């Protein structure tokens, strides 16, 4: 008799709680937030295609679906990768992530033929010049997407590492102390 009471009461409790959970999952359901839009906002937005996708929008879509890793954006560097990881709620072990380091493009004046192909490619309007006239890159506006580098017919553009300045230099982690120039 006692056993039946025990089994019965537990069964009733289990059924009740289970029903409650089911009801809650139907009526208290939280809509998916617009993840893709938020991811897009975290990306640089230059549509440079270094990640392999045509534009940042496509990259954001792939990230939202989980089809791309958070380290897909080289110009964004570690900062963007960390933010993406946080937004997606994934833990990305970025300690091994090799930051190529920021780069910027420089035009070698001797080789420039003034064809304006690079100007048309530049997503940040960092190159100024006119047809048949010398082209120049505004270093502060260049974020190293390398689209100009790819289209220059005379290979007059080269990508240089942004040097560490005295003001920006900082110590590396003690474990990595052999590489002084941390960036």
């Amino acid at each position: 008799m006692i056993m039946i009471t025990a089994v019965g009461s537990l069964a009733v409790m289990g059924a009740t709680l289970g029903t409650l959970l089911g009801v809650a999952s139907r009526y208290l359901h939280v809509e998916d937030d617009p993840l893709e839009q938020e991811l897009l906002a975290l990306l640089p937005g230059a549509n440079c295609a270094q990640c392999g996708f045509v534009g940042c929008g496509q990259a954001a879509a792939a990230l939202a679906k989980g089809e791309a890793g958070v380290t897909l954006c080289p110009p964004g560097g570690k900062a963007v990768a960390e933010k993406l990881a946080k937004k997606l709620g994934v833990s990305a072990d970025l300690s091994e992530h090799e930051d190529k380091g920021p780069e910027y493009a420089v035009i070698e004046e001797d080789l420039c033929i003034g064809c304006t192909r690079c100007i048309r490619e530049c997503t940040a309007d960092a190159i100024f010049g006119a047809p048949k006239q010398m082209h120049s890159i505004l270093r502060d506006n260049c974020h190293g997407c390398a689209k100009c580098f790819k289209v220059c017919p005379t290979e007059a553009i080269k990508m240089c590492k942004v040097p560490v300045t005295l003001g920006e230099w900082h110590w590396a982690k003690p474990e990595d102390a052999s590489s002084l120039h941390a960036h």
Partner: protein
Amino acid sequence: MKLFTVRGGVHPEYRKERTAESAIVALPLPEALYLPLQQHIGAPALPVVAAGDLVKKGQLLARAGGAVSAPVHAPTSGRIAAISDMTAPHPSGLPQPTIILEPDGKDEWAELPEAIADPLNASPDVIRQRVAESGIVGMGGATFPSAVKLNLGTERKLETLLLNGAECEPYLTCDDRVMREFAAEIIDGARIMAHALGAPHTVIAIEENKPQALEIIRKAAAGLADVVVVSVPAQYPMGSERHLVQAITGQETPARKLTADLGVVVHNVATARAVHHAVRFGKPLLSRVVTVSGGAIAKPQNVEAPLGALVSDLVSFCGGLSVPPRRVVNGGPMMGQPLPSLAVPVVKGTSGILALTAEEANEQPAEPCIRCGTCVTICPCGLVPVEMSAFIRKENLEAAARLGVRDCVSCGSCSYICPAHIPLVHYFNYAKGRLNDLDREARKTDQIRQLVEGHNVRIEKLAQARAAAAAAVAAAAAAAETASTTENRGEA
């Protein structure tokens, strides 16, 4: 004067007796002087001389490069050999633009600005202007342009000028000797600065392990109602601005604010002496006293060196290296920066050159943390080094920032006391630098996004304009078509 307790701190072995009793000796002029254009916090100075120019002692070589900047003057007469890049006295070993001056041995003065008569009644603006022109920066090592700091009185009501004679770092005795030998100059400079700040009181704080300096300064300040001399406990880091202010006033400077917001401005005693020279004699900042010490130096002493003398010049003057040092440090052992080599110049912020033996440095390999909690007990900023370093080791910089790593002043007390020899402050320096990197990258990303949006908007507009023009042309062509067909129909 009632003192207040400062939380935490450590009591390292001070080892000051090696140089405390020897009087300041002047360094003989070296063969060349190397003057970096940036010896201060702020924008680098801009050269006003060129290679080949002949200059006189005290002549302006580079003017201030902005609102927060300081000029550079010739420490002696001679010829400008070149203005080129040279290794900075900085752990990175990176180069920086440097003026190279070859002394002609004549040490001839240029024409100096007039002495300011009766500075204690002069306009504060005049005094600030003179301090700015003389290239004076914080001589305790922070090298913040002093004229900018003297400006703080214009925006706030200030109560006290606090002169920092604590010198809490081990080995260093340069401030101690300057206080003992030039007490009158310091006090005069202090009163001038207090006047420029509009602060009615001056307090000179000296650590109790400098009894002679205390006595001499007290005597020099006797009879001056506005100047009080206070002995503070010998506790590292008593010389830290915020902690010294807490010891004297009992108030904690709120995070992200200045001590001036509490009505107190802190300056180093050597800075006060430099102000005295600038105001009373028109002499710009040309030299400084450097403590050369450490187990690897044959004859440690305090040296008054012209700015731009090489560290190797000072070391040779002090008998050279008796043994190969393990570390050569610019400043004190706790917060000093290691130098890349001896071939770097002495600059305005070089308070000490220490050549430390391996025994003195006592570096051991790091062991696992045993959570003893000593670092928490002694942190003068109330942080939790054990937790922050664990997060930083795992690259979780956000968690470290939440725990307050940006509030860390890198005093080094935690690393000093950790029984497992964990390089705690090294982790925090890394974290702070990395967080700054991430901030910079984020700002750059925002900037780029704006540029790209602007670019897209421009392209849109062009496309629209083209489309509108094409539509207009098409409309005109269509209109012409209808007109001609109507005509034709009319004819038929």
